[in-house]
C-alpha cells in the first residue's frame, strides 16, 4: 500500500512540474508592468492605429477614383453606342414594308380641228388611274381604269386591264387576269398618251383595226440575258379569244368568257442585240363562232389569225419605231342585222403598218428650252380586203408634230394629220391636233 501511494505521489509531482513548465511564465504568474513599459505599449498601439487609418483613407480614395473613372467610361460607352447607331442609320436604308403600293396612271385633254367638217372641238378628255400593289418580290397586282368623255357627254368607263403578276424567278413571270394584248409594240407599250409621240394611234392600230386590244387569260413572260449586252424576251399567252364584231371582223377585246371551247393562243418573241435595238415577232390565233345557216350554208366557224413584226431603235436623242401587223379571218356565216338574214362572209384581211421617228433637239447656244422640243414624224397605212364597211376606213396617214416636254412624263403637243383614203369616193381629210398629256 505505502508503496503504491509513494508511486502515485511521485507521478503526480512529475505531472505537476511538467504542467508548470508548460505554462507561459508571465501569464501564469503576472508581474506588475512598469509605467514606462505601459507608455511604450500605448505609443506602439497608437502608431499602428494611425497607420491603419491612413491605409483606410488611401483605399477609400482609390475606390472613389475608380468609381469616377467607371462612370466616365460608361458615359463614353453610351455615347459610342449612340454614334454607332447614328452611323448605321446614315448608311442603311429605312426598312421597307412587305406590302407596298403606288397610284399611277395618266390623263390627257385636247382639241381637234377637222377640215372635212370645218369645225373644231375640245375633246380627248381621258383619265386612266392605275393601281399597283406589291407583296415582297413575289406578286404584284396591277389594274388600270379608263374613263373617257364621249362627244354626247356620256362617260365611257372600262377596266383596261386587271392582272396578277406572279414573279416566278428572275426570268419568268406568270400573269393571270385581263391583260393588254402582247401582240406588237403599240398596245402594250406605246398607247398611253404620255408615251405615244402623237395624240392618236397609227392607222389600223385603234378600234376596229388590225391590232388586238386585250385578252382574258394567262401569260408566261420574261427576259433572258444572253451574254453581256443582249436579251431575249418572250411572252406566251393563252386566252378566251376573239368574238365576231359588228363589221364582220374578229374582235379581240378581252372577253370575260369564251364563245366556244377553243382558247386563243400566241405571243411575242423579241431579241435585243443591244439594249437600244429591239426586233420582235408576234403571233396570235383563235377560233370564231358564226351561226348555222339554213341548209348547206357553211362554214359556221373560222380562225382569226394575227401575225406581225416590229422594231425599235432608241438611242441618244432618237426614237425610231416600225411595226407591221396582218390580221385575217377565214370565211364564216354570220347574221346580217341590216337585212335580217344569214350571210356568208368572205375572207377578211386587215393590214396595218407604220414607221415613226422622234428626235429630241439639243441645246442651241443659251436657249435651253430647245432641249424640251421634239419634232416627230409618222407614216402609216391601213389596208382592208373583204368588208365593204371597213374598206371605207382604209387609208394612208401622214403625221407631223412637235412635242414640248414640260417634264419627262408631261407633254404639250401640236400635230397635223393627213388622211388619204384608198376608196376614191371618200374625201381626204386633214386634222390639226392639240393635246396635253401627263403620266404619273
Amino acid at each position, binding site marked *: 500500500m505505502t508503496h503504491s501511494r509513494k508511486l502515485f505521489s511521485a507521478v503526480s509531482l512529475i505531472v505537476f512540474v511538467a504542467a508548470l513548465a508548460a505554462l507561459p511564465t508571465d501569464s501564469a504568474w503576472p508581474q506588475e508592468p512598469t509605467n514606462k513599459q505601459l507608455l511604450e505599449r500605448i505609443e506602439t498601439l497608437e502608431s499602428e492605429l494611425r497607420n491603419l487609418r491612413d491605409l483606410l483613407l488611401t483605399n477609400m480614395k482609390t475606390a472613389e477614383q475608380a468609381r469616377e473613372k467607371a462612370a466616365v467610361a460608361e458615359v463614353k460607352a453610351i455615347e459610342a453606342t449612340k454614334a454607332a447607331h447614328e452611323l448605321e442609320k446614315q*448608311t*442603311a*436604308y*429605312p*426598312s*421597307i*414594308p*412587305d406590302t*407596298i*403600293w*403606288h397610284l*399611277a396612271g395618266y390623263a390627257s385633254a385636247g382639241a381637234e380641228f377637222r377640215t372635212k367638217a370645218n369645225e373644231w372641238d375640245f375633246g380627248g378628255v381621258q383619265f386612266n388611274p392605275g393601281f*399597283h*400593289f*406589291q407583296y*415582297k*418580290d*413575289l406578286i*404584284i397586282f*396591277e389594274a388600270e381604269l379608263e374613263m373617257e368623255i364621249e362627244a354626247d357627254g356620256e362617260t365611257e368607263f372600262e377596266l383596261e386591264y386587271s392582272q396578277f*403578276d406572279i*414573279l*416566278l*424567278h*428572275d*426570268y419568268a*413571270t*406568270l*400573269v393571270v387576269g385581263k391583260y393588254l394584248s402582247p401582240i406588237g409594240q403599240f398596245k*402594250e*407599250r406605246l398607247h398611253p398618251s*404620255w*408615251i405615244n409621240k402623237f395624240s392618236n394611234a397609227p392607222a389600223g392600230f385603234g378600234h376596229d383595226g388590225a391590232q388586238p386590244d386585250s385578252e382574258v387569260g*394567262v401569260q*408566261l413572260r*420574261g*427576259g*433572258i*440575258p444572253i451574254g453581256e449586252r443582249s*436579251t431575249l*424576251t*418572250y*411572252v*406566251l399567252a*393563252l386566252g378566251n379569244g376573239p368574238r365576231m364584231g359588228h363589221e364582220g371582223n374578229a374582235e379581240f377585246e378581252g372577253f370575260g368568257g369564251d364563245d366556244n*371551247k*377553243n*382558247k*386563243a*393562243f400566241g405571243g411575242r418573241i*423579241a431579241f435585243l442585240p443591244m*439594249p*437600244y435595238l429591239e426586233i420582235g415577232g408576234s403571233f396570235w390565233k383563235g*377560233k370564231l363562232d358564226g351561226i348555222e345557216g339554213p341548209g348547206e350554208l357553211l362554214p359556221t366557224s373560222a380562225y382569226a389569225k394575227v401575225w406581225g413584226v416590229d422594231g*425599235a431603235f*432608241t438611242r441618244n436623242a432618237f426614237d425610231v419605231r416600225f411595226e407591221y401587223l396582218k390580221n385575217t379571218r377565214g370565211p364564216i356565216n354570220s347574221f346580217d342585222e341590216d337585212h335580217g338574214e344569214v350571210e356568208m362572209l368572205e375572207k377578211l384581211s386587215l393590214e396595218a403598218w407604220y414607221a415613226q421617228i422622234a428626235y429630241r433637239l439639243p441645246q442651241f447656244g443659251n436657249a435651253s428650252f430647245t432641249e424640251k422640243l421634239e419634232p416627230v414624224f409618222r407614216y402609216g397605212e391601213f389596208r382592208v380586203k373583204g368588208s365593204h364597211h371597213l374598206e371605207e376606213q382604209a387609208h394612208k396617214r401622214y403625221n407631223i408634230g412637235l412635242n414640248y*416636254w414640260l417634264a*419627262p*412624263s408631261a407633254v404639250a403637243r401640236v400635230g397635223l394629220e393627213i388622211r388619204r383614203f384608198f376608196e376614191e369616193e371618200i374625201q381626204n381629210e386633214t386634222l390639226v391636233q392639240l393635246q396635253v398629256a401627263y*403620266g404619273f
Partner: protein
Amino acid sequence: MKTPMIFTAIALAGLVGLIPLAAYSAHDDVPDPAQIARGAKAWAQQCGRCHNIRSPSELTDEEWLVSTTHMRVRGNIPGNVIRDIQAFLRSSNKKE
C-alpha cells in the same frame, strides 16, 4: 383545239419546272456600291426604251420599288437587272 392543249401542257410543264427556282427576296437594307454602279448603267440603258427616263427624285423609294417591279413585267426585264436598278434609285434618293 389540239394545238392550244399542247401549248398549255408545255407551258404548265415549263412552269412547274421553273417554280423551285423562285427567290422571294426581301429588299436589302444596306447599300452595295458595286450593285449601285451596275444599276446606274442598267437604268440608263433600259428605262428610256419605251418612254422618257424620269428623274430618281420623282418618286419615293417605295413607289420606285413598285414601279420598277411593274416595269420588270411590262418590259420583260430580268429580275436581277431590276434589283440593280432599284439599288441605284434608292441610293440616288438617299438624304446625306
